């Protein structure tokens, strides 16, 4: 299997506060990786570095073998232009904790705007694929509703469909169920489970240990800006080696 994401010593600081202090990890194509860890450990920041929503300070970050945000030529790193960065982002889907659906657009328009304006897909083709995706997340009846008229769980399913509409090769989930009422978490996890089965490469920042245990191929425990432990779910969650992971698990399980 080829490598989808590769990080070597990625660091990032906000001002003088270090957030990432040398993150190393590898995500293979088709792999589902869950990132767990206490809040402030840098999980979200790392995720946002992968699609260059945040700029990492040092280290090497590659997606499909290509450096994120830079181009290596004659031993020098050239910053990519905004246009090149945008083109690469379009291949990476992202789902946010707070859904971030476009409030002024209907569900259907949320799904077609990226296809049409970024990828130049014709309207009828975009609508067709949008309707298929809405059916896949079980919301084909809601296509002409506005986001504010949907429940949190429905909004998050639309947000997943919106990201999928760009036909991404990698999906990033930033705590996708943390803003949901407990009874709505299941419907979103169901969609993500199906997506994992279809072979999508996924990196999921989550506090849902049940989901991680069931769906993830790899679980990484991030603490104070470094990967403290990683391995199969049963190893990391069932047989924690470090004290910090043990104390974290005792709080969330």
């Amino acid at each position: 299997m080829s490598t989808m994401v590769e990080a070597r010593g990625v660091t990032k600081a906000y001002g003088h506060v270090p957030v990432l202090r040398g993150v190393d990890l590898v995500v293979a194509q088709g792999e589902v990786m869950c990132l767990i860890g206490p809040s402030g450990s840098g999980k979200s920041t790392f995720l946002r570095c992968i699609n260059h929503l945040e700029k990492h300070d040092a280290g090497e970050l590659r997606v499909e073998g290509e450096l994120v945000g830079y181009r290596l030529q004659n031993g020098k790193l050239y910053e990519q232009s905004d246009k090149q960065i945008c083109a690469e982002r379009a291949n990476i889907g992202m789902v946010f904790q707070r859904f971030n659906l476009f409030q002024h657009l209907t569900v259907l328009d949320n799904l077609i705007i990226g296809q049409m304006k970024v990828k130049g897909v014709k309207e009828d083709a975009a609508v067709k694929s949008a309707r298929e995706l809405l059916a896949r997340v079980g919301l084909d009846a809601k296509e002409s509703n506005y986001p504010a008229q949907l429940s949190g769980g429905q909004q998050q399913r639309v947000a997943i469909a919106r990201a999928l509409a760009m036909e991404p090769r990698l999906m990033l989930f930033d705590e996708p169920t943390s803003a949901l009422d407990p009874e709505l978490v299941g419907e979103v996890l169901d969609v993500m489970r199906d997506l994992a089965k279809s072979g999508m490469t996924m990196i999921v920042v989550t506090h849902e240990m049940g989901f991680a245990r069931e769906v993830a191929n790899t679980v990484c425990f991030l603490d104070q800006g470094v990967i403290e432990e990683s391995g199969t779910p049963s190893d990391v969650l069932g047989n924690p080696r470090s004290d910090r992971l043990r104390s974290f698990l005792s709080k969330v399980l």
Partner: protein
Amino acid sequence: MSKDQQSEVEVVPVRHVGQWVGAAVVLIAIAMVVHTLFSKVPLQSGLNKCVTTAGKRVCHPIFIWRFQWNTVGQYLFSSEVLHGVILTLQLTVVAMVIGIVLGVIIAVMRLSNNRLLAAPAWVYTWFFRGTPVYVQLFFWFNIGLLYKRFTLGVPFLHVTFFSTSTNVITGVWAAILGLGLNEAAYMSEIARAGIISVDEGQTEAATSLGMTKGQTLRLVVLPQAMRVIIPPTGNEVISMLKTTSLAASIAVIELFGAVQNIWANNFKTLPLIVVACLWYLFMTTVMSIGQFYIERHFARGALRSPPMTPVQRLRKDLRTLGGRTRLTRMTS
């Protein structure tokens, strides 16, 4: 214990004595205003109308409307006034278009991370908000004293595409420049407030879809900022419509200039002021109605149900009118 039983009980509202007194005072005031608007007074010159019947000469004072409504009617639709109305509308539209376009550009510049863009935008707002628009109008009207020619070309290289004498800066052009550039300063603050009111998550979502900064602004941020931008912009349009009357002082024959020209000839000052007021009121009223529907359009998605139109509201009021509230309560 007896079984629960339902009964309907009439609800007696609290009597608001203060509200009744207040309403009476307001009604009397309204009656006074209506009375003075439609009262008649003897002709000021003291001329009497005398009739001789059966060798007897009888004289009566001549009464006319205090507000000289017949003169108002005579000039309300005169061609001079109508031309003035049209020029007023044209000035308003052109100055607002300049103000809005330039205002949005300045707002985006001010929000830029690049200080060389942000600082000039701040200075622009500082200058045009800090000096009276009346004074600015005179500045543009007299710009010919500073610059003899207006030239379009490459700076410092003596390459000229287009050049014309500044004598072309007539009153109307001075008014358009003065009103538009001044408006841009205010519109930029309104647009800036609208843009920063849109949640940052919207920008992040658009960015993560691969949209460029320009696309994000145009397709995602500005349409949502409109909800915040439209109400104060409506105020600005209405305010602009009235501010165009200042242009009368730099030889622009818009509505107020037109009525001034008329009363300079016939001295019927007051009825002509009334003519101008009626036109300004009519135009601002139409604009307010338009503003309501534009606001309603841009509120889509932000509210679960759109606000009622006045017609819908009236229907609802009529349906509930006179019906006293009834509470059903359980008594045991």
